[in-house]
């Protein structure tokens, strides 16, 4: 059988490498975030220097994650990029609209608890996952 390419697997393996790299940066960022969040309580008892170092390390891994994410997105094909774009747009829109409404509810004393950034991150993650799911379903 005459195959259409002599570089079989090259694009796919590059995509896998990008995804793996993104996975490593994500893991490093999450672990450093946990360290910065729980370290002061369980490890170094609120010393300023370890706190600052943990936050700087977390920031560094965060920047690495952003670069890896950008690299990964550029490596996707145009349909995958479209799915990612739509999911990201949904997540951002939901985050801004719901985040501001949430803040207004708190300002008007209509909710009895303090809004947390983690609630917004969770909502944005869920809407992003929903966007990816519907996008992939549409083009299946």
């Amino acid at each position, binding site marked *: 059988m005459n195959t259409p390419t002599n570089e079989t697997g090259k694009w796919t393996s590059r995509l896998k490498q990008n995804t793996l790299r993104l996975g490593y940066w994500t893991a490093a960022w999450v672990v450093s975030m946990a360290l910065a969040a729980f370290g002061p309580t369980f490890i170094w008892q609120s010393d300023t220097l370890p706190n600052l170092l943990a936050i700087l390390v977390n920031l560094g891994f965060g920047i690495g994650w952003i670069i890896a994410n950008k690299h990964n997105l550029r490596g996707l094909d145009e349909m995958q990029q479209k799915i990612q774009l739509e999911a990201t747009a949904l997540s951002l829109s939901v985050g801004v609209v719901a985040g501001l409404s949430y803040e207004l509810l708190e300002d008007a004393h209509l909710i009895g608890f303090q809004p947390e950034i983690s609630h917004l991150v969770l909502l944005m993650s869920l809407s992003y996952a929903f966007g990816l799911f519907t996008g992939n379903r549409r*083009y299946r």
Partner: protein
Amino acid sequence: MKNRLKILRAERDWTQAQLAEALEVSRQTVNAIETGKFDPSLPLAFKVARVFELSIEEIFQD
């Protein structure tokens, strides 16, 4: 936009995975183009034409 991708691929006995690799896209994208769910950009349409050694008009129709 209609296209003859599936027919042309079958004529050459290529799998979706082989065509996807040649076009540097995912197999899901080849499938979406074949079923008309996704319209490729002009650069990708040119790439498809190059792989099949045909003109764009011979593959894609309005």
